[in-house]
């Protein structure tokens, strides 16, 4: 399926990309994270188990076991620090 994936803040800077279109053959947010992690380098480092990051699907926070719908807008970002 097709996904649109967004990165914010420190992750956007480290990955050097703000947004990309992806072909995705998995089912859950965790599968997507595993696919990105397999790119190695900063991807493996920032998305390693135990690293603090958040995932939003269609602009709502989700847990890693959430299923991704077709054409989802998925965002991966560090814990928020607003206010």
């Amino acid at each position, binding site marked *: 399926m097709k996904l649109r994936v967004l990165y914010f803040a420190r992750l956007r800077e480290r990955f050097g990309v703000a947004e990309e279109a992806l072909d995705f053959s998995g089912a859950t947010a965790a599968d997507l994270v595993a696919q990105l992690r397999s790119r190695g380098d900063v991807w493996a480092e920032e998305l390693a188990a135990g690293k603090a990051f958040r995932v939003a699907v269609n*602009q709502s926070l989700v847990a890693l076991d959430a299923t991704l719908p077709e054409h989802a807008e998925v965002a991966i970002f560090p814990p928020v620090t*607003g*206010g």
Partner: protein
Amino acid sequence: MKIVVQSEVFDLGAEVEAMRRGRTDIGAIASFVGLARDHNAGSGVQAMTLEHYPGMTEKALAALVEEAKSRWTLLDVTLIHRVGRLLPGDPIVLVAVAGQHRGEAFAACEFIMDYLKTRAPFWKKEETPEGERWVDARASDDAAAARWNLP
């Protein structure tokens, strides 16, 4: 209800005045202004830049105001969050809650701030004498949010 994300400065007095003007049923307005400080985590801070996730930010802020309205009887809520580059002393966020009684206005105002700190997609990057750095989320903010038994 008024929920805005903007780069411009806001005016606490004007916002609270707009809430109460022409009304005689409000007994209490609790408000909060968060400001950029000149130091954080042991370093001087010369400036900060607030990044956000357009689209999700507005959804998240609307959801947290709705959650507050479901928990307390509120007469009005105003929530303004700034983005972009800010200097020490600049106001960052404003929350104002009007109710009949002070207990619910105070509780809802603090709830919205605690919820915002852990749920709304804003990120701060600080400019310090040692260079730029992204602000880490604080465990104390998670603890503050946990007090409200958020889902």
